[in-house]
């Protein structure tokens, strides 16, 4: 029990001491996961929308593939990307292995199916009357799609939060492709894993608490933006 109390104390001292090493680790976590989320959104949201709204063959297959990819073990993603990005692999010329870029790529692979699949289900669940109403009011095909996607915005926001949650908490893939290099590719989760390995349980747990804390702030911020966005819209 005293471990936990110490860890909480430690967590607060980390947050308020603004130790530059830890700050850098936290910022890198946010940067890597943030970029992964942005890329996943730019690719995954249109993908989910297209699968939801376009008539196409093999739709069921695509949905199944997406849902399966949601459960990809991060270690497998990491290993696969390692082999692809390795100097001896097909994309080795990019020199991306053991850089933050490789970590962003790995987390994108993990977040993309979540963003796509959950956006897809949010969009599918929009009442078809909405797209008909849009069309009767003179919307083009594209404008109709945008309208339907917009009607699904709460579900899409949940999809983004779920995707961000997965990548922020992920350790297996980025450990392999990032290498957990101090001051360069070390993020919160890999630090937690390392400190656990090294037996610094309090520090590891404290970092875990900080991670939780940051996730909560981000989720709250997203929630507030959603609320605020709606208020703007209504004015």
């Amino acid at each position, binding site marked *: 029990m005293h471990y936990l109390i110490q860890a909480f104390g430690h967590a607060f001292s980390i947050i308020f001491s603004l130790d530059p090493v830890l700050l*850098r680790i936290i*910022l*890198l976590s*946010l*940067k890597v996961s*943030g*970029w992964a989320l*942005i890329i996943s*959104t730019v690719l995954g949201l249109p993908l989910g929308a297209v699968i939801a709204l376009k008539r196409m063959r093999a739709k069921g297959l695509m949905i199944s593939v997406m849902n399966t990819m949601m459960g990809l073990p991060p270690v497998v993603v990491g290993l696969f990307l390692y082999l692809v990005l*390795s*100097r*001896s*692999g097909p994309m*080795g010329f990019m*020199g991306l*292995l*053991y850089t*933050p870029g490789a970590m962003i790529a790995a987390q994108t692979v993990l977040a993309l199916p979540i963003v796509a699949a959950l956006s897809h289900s949010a969009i599918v669940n929009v009442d078809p009357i909405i797209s008909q109403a849009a069309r009767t009011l003179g919307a083009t095909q594209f404008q109709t799609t*945008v309208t339907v996607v*917009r009607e699904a*915005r709460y579900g899409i*926001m949940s999809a983004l939060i779920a995707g961000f949650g997965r990548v922020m908490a992920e350790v297996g893939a980025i450990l392999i492709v990032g*290498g*957990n*290099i*101090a*001051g*360069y*590719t070390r993020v919160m989760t890999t630090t937690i894993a390392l400190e656990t*390995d*090294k*037996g*610094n349980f309090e520090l590891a747990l404290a970092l875990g608490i900080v991670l939780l804390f940051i996730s909560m702030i981000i989720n709250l911020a997203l929630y507030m*933006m*959603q609320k605020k*966005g*709606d208020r*703007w*819209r209504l004015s």
Partner: protein
Amino acid sequence: MRFKTLVLIIAILSVSFVTVSPAISVSAETRIRCASTTSTQNSGLFDYILPIFKKQTGITVDVVAVGTGAAIEIGKRGDADVVFVHARQLELKAVKEGYFVNRHDVMYNDFVIIGPPGDPAGIKGLKSAAVAFKKIAEGGYTFVSRGDRSGTNIKELAIWKKAGVNPKDRKWYLEVGQGMEKTERIASEKRAYTLTDRGTWLATMDKDRLDMAILLQGDPALFNQYGVMAVNPARHKHVKYKEAMKFVNWLISKKGQKIIASYKRKGEELFFPDAK
């Protein structure tokens, strides 16, 4: 939420990530990548010597710490510039195969057998690690193995071979597939024996509150040689061979060797320089 708002948020986030980001704008400085072992990293040696090396040469060494087997593999694939491990036979083999050049002994420490202070197998006072292993096997006392193809694991398997015991699939033999420190902790929890390097042991015995003691040491078979080697630039054109060799030469130089010797934990020297 409005789409415009969402786009705006994404734009703000992107800009802040790029500008606040500490790590992406570092390509200008010289960095080399060193594949090494968890035991070396966890001993704290790198945290001690690398800042000194950087001060003297301006080169940042990024350490990727994995098991010895993986470290050599990473080097073979050209994903590191230099490899710093402790499995002499494997290293020499990889050099012979042409993957690496300029291998040098850097330092050594030694392995010790640790176990419950009560020593149920009665190996205390023995001179030979192989005899001790045999006694553990005959009594069926629990033994925890790294089981991860690390340098320590390779050493351990060599001792089993010498003892004439095949421990695989025996009930008392636990292959945990974890790093050295975790393996020690598991052994401590299970009142079991295990093989560890002295550096990790000294660094962790108090911190992890290990209820263990050194029961056998000093057998020449427990000698643990660390070596460094550069990835062969003829094989991988992109490697930073020049900088890698600076690091290798620094490690085996008088200056470097002295710094390695000066690294102490609890007043004890962890690594003994022995470059020729």
